[in-house]
């Protein structure tokens, strides 16, 4: 009697649950083909980025730490770093490689926090999202300005890594950022006779410059 009751009860519970599951898988399948999950991913990333830069009470260092965390979670840093080396991808030694990965991350954080700091209370509207093959997606969006400036187009190139989307590249009014990065990184290595250390020291120098730039920015603002 007791068993019957339990079975009964669990069936009663299971039916709607099963329905939910079916619905959810259904939704998941549709979104996979239309790029809806890519859209919501970009929505989430931009919301977080905007909240980081809108927090005006935060110091530059706090902003950088927040931004670094966002980047670690949402950008495919290894792939970006690998891409940026172009034909020199296999030239670094394991030590150079790990140093490079560390510097590149720091460099990107410094550069983009500096660049993003100019944005205030802007809004990002997603225009469209579509799959590119089965592992990549392109999400097109626009930054709307509150001061009546022309909107700026931003395209996101996402790549699926272990089920989750990660940012691979961002196109701002026609310029792919990772591509620009690759072109300069390879140029440095090429112009130093293929010496990978030249890139590392350039990166270190640039990180230092970005820091110096922040200081002068702050003193200019005061």
């Amino acid at each position, binding site marked *: 009697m007791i068993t019957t009751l339990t079975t009964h009860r669990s069936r009663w519970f299971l039916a709607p649950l099963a329905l939910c599951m079916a619905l959810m898988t259904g939704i998941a399948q549709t979104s996979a083909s239309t790029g809806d999950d890519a859209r919501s991913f970009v929505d989430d990333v931009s919301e977080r980025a905007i909240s980081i830069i809108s927090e005006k009470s935060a110091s530059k260092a706090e902003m950088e730490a927040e931004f670094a965390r966002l980047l670690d979670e949402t950008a495919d840093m290894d792939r970006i770093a690998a891409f940026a080396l172009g034909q020199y991808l296999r030239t670094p030694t394991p030590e150079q490689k790990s140093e490079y990965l560390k510097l590149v991350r720091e460099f990107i954080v410094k550069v983009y926090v500096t660049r993003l700091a100019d944005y205030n209370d802007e809004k990002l509207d997603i225009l469209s999202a579509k799959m590119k093959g089965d592992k990549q997606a392109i999400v097109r969006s626009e930054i709307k300005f509150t001061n009546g400036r022309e909107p700026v187009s931003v395209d996101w190139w996402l790549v699926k890594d272990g089920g989750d989307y990660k940012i691979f590249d961002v196109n701002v009014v026609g310029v792919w950022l990772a591509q620009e990065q690759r072109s300069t990184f390879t*140029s440095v290595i090429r112009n130093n006779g293929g010496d990978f250390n030249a890139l590392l020291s350039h990166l270190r120098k640039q990180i230092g410059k970005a820091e110096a730039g922040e200081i002068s920015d702050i003193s200019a603002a005061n």
Partner: protein
Amino acid sequence: MAGIALVAALALTFALTAPHRAMAADEEPAMATSDTDAYNDSGENDPLEPMNRYFFELNKFFDTILLKPVATWYDGVVPEPGRNGIRNFLDNLRSPVILANDLLQGEWDRAGTTASRFGINTTVGLLGLFDPAADWGMPQHSEDFGQTLGTYDVAEGPYLFLPVLGPAPPRDLTGFVVDQFFDPLTYIYWDDSSDVPLIRFAVNGIDQRARSLDTLDQIERTSVDHYATVRNLYRQIRKNEIANGKRDFDDLPDIDNLNFDTNETDSPSASF
């Protein structure tokens, strides 16, 4: 991400020749082009790099001692409405060149916009000092003969950086020269030893430099190789301008299996 102004700015110090290059970022559909694809181009196509770098440094030197100080002064002394009036006036003056190129590209709608803008802004806009046409749904766009050649699938050619002019690969240098012939003002001052064209060129350069003071500083500060950054940005911006802002996502490189551990060949073309 503040690349917007970055993009707009870039054209400026480095290319005083084509006003509002970067402003052609509008999304109007246009014919897709298969211009030299910077993205798939693993070689840099820059055989004269040492010379180009020399001129690049030369321009940077003159920028530091002359153009930038003058632009900073202009930015500080002339109030914004004045600067906008000058910008509008210069843009309006360029309308015939833009119109000629709209037509040569078969962009009839854009040609109509350019012609209407010229009519409206020259009259209602008081000889082009104001831009009422933009408020009436006809925003400014720019064209030049380099872009027109691009729409005819003419390749950019090897990179070239010239003193004063900035990035001027053969296609765009040709375009710059041809555009002079589309400009009625060229004929007005043909036999004259007038300074007007020179003043126009200089004011245009100063105004554009003034509009990009922060952005260009930022680019210089955040690039590992300033020359290479400018070269790449120039190519990407031009490609985008030729396509009138229309993006082609199908010719992006294959990155599916790209990482440090892939066991592919070292050949640049194989993995990218």
